[in-house]
């Protein structure tokens, strides 16, 4: 034993028996409460009044009918990107490319939305939604093929492809998709046919929100009730063992990636067809990256993704009111998001391990 070890107490992590189910569910909530408390540090740093800040954070998100419905509106893209990341992560396919896949969906939706010929509205919407889904799926196919066929790391390739798609969008918005006569990078408005119907009066509560909830149910069904869901889970647990067990791992990973990319793309379709009605460089304020946080907080479970997407939507929507009323920069929402992910990781660790103090 070294001298140092004799004199001090050491803390080590020791495995603990699995916690009951309710404790597992509690963990994300604890992580959220802790990160909300810790966010008081940046609020104080920005000289915001604490009570007023938290009040307006929640009031801005839930305080009025309109605010509450805005929070629902914001959760739609977050649910899609969260589901996209969670679905891929279950197979340990590290799709960090939801941002680029979202943009792929937005670009295709815009292009069809501008050029859609006269046809029934539901046909136009079905066309746009399915084309957007396919576009995102194909963009996600690239890192999946690179990983399975050429052994290129999926984290790096999917991340770099985000920047590629962003610049492709820039090229289109300064080129063929640019609004005639405009010097700004924005597209012409999409046709009325391509716009998502609004479902509630005096709000922006649109079709995409219902679609997101349906997507939660579908992904739950795929995960729990289908062969694909079972195979994805096996691959996530142990890729080699799954392969030896007769699961066609390459084709499952490719399917996973395409569904994941398609889901992310639907976030982009919704932003174009229900919010902006045209394409612009700021179409996504990082929804694809928020999806990673939402997926982890939701513990990769579709229902958990729905809940955590709603929570982060509250933070993003509420932060705007808070910023207006207290002067705390609106980026507090990004700080809280990043913090929540880190705290969630630590909290999760303590479901499996406990700190043991050994004195010598």
């Amino acid at each position, binding site marked *: 034993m070294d001298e140092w070890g004799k004199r001090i107490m050491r803390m080590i992590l020791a495995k603990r028996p699995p916690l009951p189910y309710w404790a597992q569910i509690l963990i994300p909530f604890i992580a959220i409460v802790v990160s909300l408390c810790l966010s008081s540090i940046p609020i104080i740093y920005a000289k915001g009044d604490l009570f007023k800040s938290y009040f307006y954070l929640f009031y801005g998100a839930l305080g009025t009918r309109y605010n509450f419905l805005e929070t629902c509106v914001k959760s739609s893209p977050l649910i899609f990107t969260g589901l996209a990341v969670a679905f891929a992560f279950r197979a340990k396919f590290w799709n960090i490319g939801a941002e680029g896949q979202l943009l792929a969906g937005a670009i295709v939706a815009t292009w069809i939305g501008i050029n859609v010929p006269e046809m029934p509205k539901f046909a136009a919407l079905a066309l746009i939604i399915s084309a957007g889904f396919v576009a995102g799926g194909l963009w996600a196919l690239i890192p999946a093929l690179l990983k399975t066929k050429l052994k290129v790391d999926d984290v790096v390739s999917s991340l770099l492809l985000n*920047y590629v798609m962003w*610049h492709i969008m820039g090229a289109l918005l*300064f080129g063929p998709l640019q609004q005639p006569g405009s010097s700004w990078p924005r597209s012409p408005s999409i046709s009325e046919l391509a716009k998502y119907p609004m479902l509630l009066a005096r709000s922006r509560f649109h079709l995409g929100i219902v679609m997101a909830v349906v997507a939660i149910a579908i992904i739950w069904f795929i995960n729990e009730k289908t062969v694909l869901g079972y195979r994805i889970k096996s691959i996530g647990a142990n890729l080699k063992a799954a392969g030896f067990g007769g699961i066609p791992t390459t084709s499952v990973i490719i399917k996973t990636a395409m569904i994941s990319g398609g889901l992310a793309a639907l976030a982009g379709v919704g932003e174009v067809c229900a919010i902006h009605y045209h394409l612009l460089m700021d179409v996504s304020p990082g929804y694809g990256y928020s999806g990673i946080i939402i997926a982890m907080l939701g513990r990769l479970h579709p229902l958990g993704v729905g809940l955590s997407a709603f929570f982060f939507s509250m933070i993003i929507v509420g932060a705007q009111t808070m910023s207006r009323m207290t002067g705390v920069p609106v980026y507090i929402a*990004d700080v809280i998001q990043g*913090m929540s992910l880190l705290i969630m990781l630590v909290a999760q660790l303590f479901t499996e391990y406990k700190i043991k103090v050994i004195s010598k």
Partner: protein
Amino acid sequence: MGSLFDQIFQMSFIIGLLSAMFRMATPIIFGTLGEIITERSGVLNLGIEGIMLISAMFGFLATLTTGSQWFGVLIAILVGVIFALMMAFLVVYLGLSQHVSGLGVTLFATGLAMFVYRHAVGSPTIPPIVQPFKPFPIPYLSDIPFFGQILFNQYALVYVSWALIPIMWIFLYKTRYGLALRVVGENPMAADTVGINVNLTRTLALVVGGALMGVGGAFLTLAHQNMFLIDVVGGRGWVCIAMVIFGNWDPIRGSLGALLFGFIDAFQLRLQSSGFAIPFHLFLVLPYVITIIALIGVARKSSAPAGLLKPYRREEKGG
């Protein structure tokens, strides 16, 4: 079109291009070297993108308030170290997933950088600027025709990055400490058996790596540009991760990859300003696409440190 090709064969064009290549490669070299030393100890630091951004931001603010660029670099190093320690806490001492922790550090650092910047400068219509580093021509050498202009009329930090390449190589392959670091990265249990402190080694590697990433970030706001923009790093951190793989975890080959990236980046900038009839965003794609192609080229041959991504918990053996 013809005028572009005329331009390419002009001496001033070549000098400008190659000199810009070394300049554009510098933040990538710092980041790549930082990531190599980290990964050689068995830790993947995906926090690099966020660490470079927040160091760039704090370095910029420090220079904005004091007027001293070197003080800005110092602050950037300090910030890089702090976030590397955060990474060390998560993945070395708690043994959490290196993928998710790194992304978490990047997202947290990015949010914090934007938050602090906005609070510090408000929302002025014209973003504040600093007096950036001036080029530091090396006496006599910079007078050499052609090569002097390209190699020896650069910022001081560019020479520092060049010096670090052989230093890192000698450290890794020719010193006891480098050997210890590599053993920790390849086989932490064996390292532990011969008395090397695995966790401390990994923490120190992260800290040195974080400091280098910090300098890379500071270079972007204090030399490459003179202001802080949200997308000032713009994926360069991820490019560094790619260059580590491309360079097969070797400082010299990784830096050559960084130079390749710098060349493409400098070239696309010149194509943009040459008034080509193609939207310049298509040229902006080039560095990222070529990085991916480079990865494809080496993917089957590359061999990561065997202990990469694996947390080491000595106590786990007994159950």
